[in-house]
């Protein structure tokens, strides 16, 4: 039961040049009470996005109409903190399909791939180039090519390659998930368990 296939994504991007964006900011714990995986996008970055009267904060990037797109670009150590997959669900549900940063927290990175979001880790220098390109032109587009493992700033032509293991890449390209894989090797798991 998989998610959308990820092949090539060409989109403008939303810049968030803040370091250590933790999962409590991505989605505060009080919004984790659903028992179904839907609607989390409404509360993405809730306390940065809305004030205590639920009014949009005008200085927050998601409330600024000049920025849009399916790519979120964050500062170093994106997704630190809690293991809540709700953080990845909220990002996906809002409409992002790719998060770019110079460094990701481990659990978030795994969760992102498991829900069909591609985490793209770039060098700090390339990250700055992306922020500069967006600052110059908010509609500036990025192209993320999973097959070639390459991210390009289309306005400047600058590009960088990124890493992903072959298994996860194959899954994302084809929209497969780990549960399908594990179900296919159930007897091997059962005999492993019996020997333990």
């Amino acid at each position, binding site marked *: 039961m998989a998610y959308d296939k990820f092949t090539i994504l060409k989109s403008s991007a939303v810049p968030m040049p803040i370091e250590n964006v933790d999962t409590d900011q991505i989605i505060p714990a009080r919004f984790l009470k659903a028992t179904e995986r839907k609607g989390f996008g409404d509360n993405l970055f809730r306390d940065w996005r809305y004030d205590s009267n639920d009014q949009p904060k005008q200085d927050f990037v998601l409330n600024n109409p000049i920025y849009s797109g399916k790519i979120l670009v964050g500062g170093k*150590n994106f997704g630190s903190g809690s293991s809540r997959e709700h953080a990845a669900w909220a990002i996906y549900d809002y409409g992002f399909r790719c998060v770019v940063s110079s460094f990701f*927290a481990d659990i978030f990175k795994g969760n992102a791939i498991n829900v069909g979001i591609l985490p793209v880790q770039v060098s700090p220098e390339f990250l700055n180039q992306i922020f500069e390109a967006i600052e110059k032109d908010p509609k500036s587009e990025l192209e993320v090519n999973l097959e070639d493992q390459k991210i390009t700033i289309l306005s400047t032509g600058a590009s960088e390659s990124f890493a992903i293991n072959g298994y996860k890449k194959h899954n994302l390209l084809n929209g497969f998930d780990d549960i399908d894989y*594990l179900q296919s090797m159930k007897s091997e798991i059962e005999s*492993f368990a019996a020997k333990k």
Partner: protein
Amino acid sequence: MSNSPKTLFDKVWDSHVVRNIEDGPDVFFIDRHFIHEVTSPVAFLGLEQRGIGVLFPEKTFATADHNTPTINQHLPVEDPLSANQLAQLEKNSAKYGISHWGLGNPKNGIVHVVGPENGITLPGMTIVCGDSHTSTHGAFGAIAFGIGTSEVEMVLSSQCIMQPKPKKMRINVNGQLGKGVTPKDVALYIISKLTTSGATGYFVEYAGDVFENMTMEGRMTVCNLSIEMGARGGMIAPDQTTFDYINGRELAPKGADWDKQLAYWKTLKTDAGASFDKELTFNAADIEPMITYGTNPGMGIGISKNIPSANEVEGGATTYAKSLDYMGFHENDAMIGKKVDYVFIGSCTNGRIEDFRAFASIIKGHKKADHVTAWVVPGSHIVEAQIKEEGILDILTDAGFELRQPGCSACLAMNDDKIPAGKYAVSTSNRNFEGRQGPGSRTLLASPYVAAAAAITGVVTDPRQFL
């Protein structure tokens, strides 16, 4: 098996690999799986949508903790969304034959407190839970870490997850800890040195005489906080302290099974000459009682120190300024004397009996400061019973404190226990992120001693003056 020296981590990891995928993760077998009400319902829903079941229900243990109230637990839960999650956990556990310690059950409590205290957590095991503080269980020489809900569904349906093997780091702390310096301070000190991403990609082994001389509860506090430096988990080699802790616990092995397992557990240590990808060594004498001043656990300092200026810290000046602005603090401010509105002792980090003994040792004979609201929350019913049996409740009551019922409480603002906007809380929990304890709340992470000293003086206070 090769005879080359292996680390503790390698020994446990390698014995749990069902299949190694080329250019991919390991199919990794899980011995113990804990679930709670918040991160499991979507996993159970996934099973239903796929039409698959739970492969080994006896290896999964459910407890309710995150959104449970900490007063009047005998009454129906008021918040309908929380009540629904709790009902789903009970229903799903019953449907698949999973052990369930719900509200009101005498075994109920925070997942990372009840696992060890009931003998479910054992050395050499692989342990996961949809909660990043699962690293706690590494104190027993287990590989334990937090997972996402997709992975909860994987464990339920196949008892495996897909994990690339992390790199290995050893952190040594040697020497004698000073007066008033607790395991919490050791952990906050290490995190302040490494930053919140300093151990990302690594699994940590803690070694050296400070950890060897630590109690199991202290080791749990240290391992609990491994995730706060970005490590997936941390572990400590099991020794006589570990075996003595486990022996006799309800679900621990007994008789011949105990002897057999004990013989295996004694092999669980890093061989001389085994190599790590990174090794760090700290001196115990350099550590003083710690407190955080910012919005991540890496922003901690010795309690007698002043807040660093931006040029003294790693990371961007903008992020640093945003953090101090949120806290209402300034560069070079002293922490001692800062006003405190709330004190919280509890959580999977510091919600065990030794933490309450430490707290009580300072408040005994004093009174809670009038303006301070204090939440004293045991990690489990077993801890609650110990607090009563040992006379700690009397000390609390005499000093003007009330004891609440077990749960995650004010650690994460999912239940009714929230710190109001703008207020300062000295908290023995694990995260000081913006809004972690409630929208706009300001958290100062610290040990039970520092929390106790703040509760009676109403300001940030060096606890050593009371010891």
